[in-house]
């Protein structure tokens, strides 16, 4: 790290589409080192001292926001948080004006969580000399989540090439699914997507290596089963009749999990609807790596800040 050849080539992190295999590898290597920092007694390194990171969360979030904040602080950056309810956007300020205001503060990096697909990309076009990280935009992408998921898998599996990963749930509306499909396919994993037909994209076949509406088919021989949170507001949109039926048809139970590879790992981006998409004994069981995901969330986000801000080679260091 830090050598000329390894200087990270991206200013922003907006989509997994923009990353090469090597880029993903660089995030993982860096995150591993950052994880070590988080396990020290004094969990702080001076790398980003004097740098300003603004976390702009225009939609509710617990773990993503918290982990970006912790990540920034462990790297000694000055971290400012803006949330939807307390921000001028809730007073009707436009994206353009908000971007202008942020720019005027001279931040080095902005993370953006928005209910609108593309908003981080649009802000990145409006602000020069500042990195933008997509912390989840609408139904589009959630690249930092995908990177932490990939990191978690890498801790449990030898290789990605040929790894059977099944993603189950609301594929259509899930930014986590979209980023993971792109990222995992780049690494050579065989990705199957599964969910009610009403929650699969129109071009599902083009997106993934396998598409099924049967959770049994999806789980069978899978090395990794990634469950997605079912959003209760989707019921009102008539995409499925009720949670009970959804759970019966698409819930992950220990019985169903027997069909998977012996060393299967079960993932969930959280927050979990216990007893809906995932049975409590599965969520808490030996297969579950859900809390590893959260832990890796901090490490990956430290790596993101570190690499995007030039690997800490700031002036004066």
């Amino acid at each position, binding site marked *: 790290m830090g050598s000329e050849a390894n200087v990270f080539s991206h200013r922003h992190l907006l989509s997994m589409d923009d990353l090469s295999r090597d880029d993903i590898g660089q995030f993982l290597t860096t995150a591993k080192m950052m994880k070590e920092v988080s396990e020290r007694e004094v969990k702080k390194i001076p790398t980003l001292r004097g740098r300003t990171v603004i976390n702009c969360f225009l939609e509710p979030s617990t773990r993503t926001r918290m982990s970006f904040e912790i990540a920034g602080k462990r790297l000694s950056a000055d971290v400012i948080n803006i949330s939807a309810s307390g921000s001028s956007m809730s007073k009707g300020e436009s*994206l353009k004006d908000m971007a202008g205001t942020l720019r005027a503060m001279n931040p080095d990096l902005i993370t953006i969580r928005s209910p609108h697909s593309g908003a981080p990309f649009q802000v990145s076009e409006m602000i020069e000399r500042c990195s933008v990280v997509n912390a989840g935009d609408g139904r*589009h*992408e959630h690249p930092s989540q995908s990177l932490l998921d990939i990191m978690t898998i890498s801790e449990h599996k030898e290789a990605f090439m040929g790894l059977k990963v099944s993603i189950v749930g609301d594929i259509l509306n899930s930014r986590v699914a979209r980023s993971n499909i792109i990222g995992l396919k780049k690494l050579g994993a065989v990705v199957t997507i599964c969910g009610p037909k009403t929650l699969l994209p129109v071009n599902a076949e083009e997106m993934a290596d396998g598409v099924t509406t049967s959770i049994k088919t999806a789980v069978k021989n899978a090395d990794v089963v990634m469950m997605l949170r079912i959003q209760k507001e989707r019921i009102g949109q008539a995409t499925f009749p009720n949670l009970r039926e959804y759970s019966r048809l698409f819930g992950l139970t220990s019985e169903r999990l027997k069909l998977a590879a012996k060393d299967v790992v079960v993932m969930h981006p959280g927050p979990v609807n216990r007893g809906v998409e995932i049975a409590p004994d599965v969520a808490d069981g030996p297969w579950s790596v859900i809390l590893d995901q959260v832990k890796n969330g901090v490490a990956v986000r430290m790596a993101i800040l570190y690499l995007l801000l030039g690997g800490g080679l700031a002036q004066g260091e």
Partner: protein
Amino acid sequence: MAGLLIKNGRVIDPASGVDEVTDVLIEKGVISKMARNLKAPSGAKVIDATGKWVTPGLIDMHTHLREPGYEYKETIETGALSAAVGGFTSIACMANTNPVNDSASVTDMITEKAKKAVVNVFPIGAVTQGLKGEKLAEIGEMAECGVVALSDDGKCVMDARLMRLAMEYGSMFGLTLIEHAEDHSLSGGGVMNEGAQAVRMGLVGQPKAAEDSIVARDITLAEYLDLPVHIAHLSSAYSIELIREAKRRGVKVTGEAAPHHFTLTDVCCDGYDTNAKMAPPLREDKDVEAIKKGLKDGTIDCIATDHAPHSADEKETEFDQAAFGIVGLETALPLSLALVDKKVLTPSRLIETLTSAPAKILGIERGSLSQGAVADVTIIDPEAEWVIDPSKFRSKGKNTPFGGWKVKGRADVTIVKGRVVHEWQ
């Protein structure tokens, strides 16, 4: 007013089948003579149209002039100026103003303002009160005030019975219904075409079936009632096939296509470009091809701009929050001429789609250069190359995905009732 003599132009008048180099003399606001080697009467202005096309004034049967209510987007005055620059001498304006043009008083206000506009403005009345799709608008009274057609454009008439009643009621006044074919229950929440591109961008798509199903319904009604219906801004290949079949059976269905729909696809939404957001949305390659074929074989009768000006603020925002629509009056002609360049349409067929075809659908006495006709004339330079610069638009709206495009062809001179209202500088 002194006369105007247009010399040596290639006169293309599809309505009369004329396509030849000749002179056109305009006197007292009408075309007084068309023949070779005409001498200019004393005091008459002479325009040398050598190498140019002399056509009936272009007609756009689908514009949004935004007045009353949204004057910050466009006014009748600025919309008409924009039309003149684009070569249009007549424009029909949609009813989705505020208040909606659903009563005689609003129609009167529009026609009163239109008297000062540089081109002819023909108002289109709403089908339903407030475009709410519940009760019929005051169609008879609006007809007396001069509306030329009926449309809830921007919204589809979702209630099939109301659509039927409106077609029947409108027919008493010779008014055709113009349908914005979009089943809102199917397209609801969609901000672009449903397909791989929308999935990639994480945006909610509108399926083509939302358009196709309404086109099928309206054809069924038109056939059953033996009454006309016109489908606005066709964007889907299957809708065009439905119309082709219906026309073969003699159903009185007509259709229009907008230049952006035969020029661009949903890939143009890349980078969350809100200037590529419109209703109906940009579709896919096969739809673009189907529109061209439809224009060529007459399935699609005419080209209309769906000129939809918005303020910059309404476009400089998140894609799913941005307003639908683009301006079209000042870009329609070169984009349409590209179809001639690519040998999709003959010059005569192209001019027909922009003149006599829309005139016929609206039932207005325009769109022909015959002797004694109102002298609405457009002189087109089909070869002039220029770059589209939105900042120079006469329209208040600068919302176009065509900014910076190098195009060929433009209106050199636009003449309304014998008066030159635009000359390319």
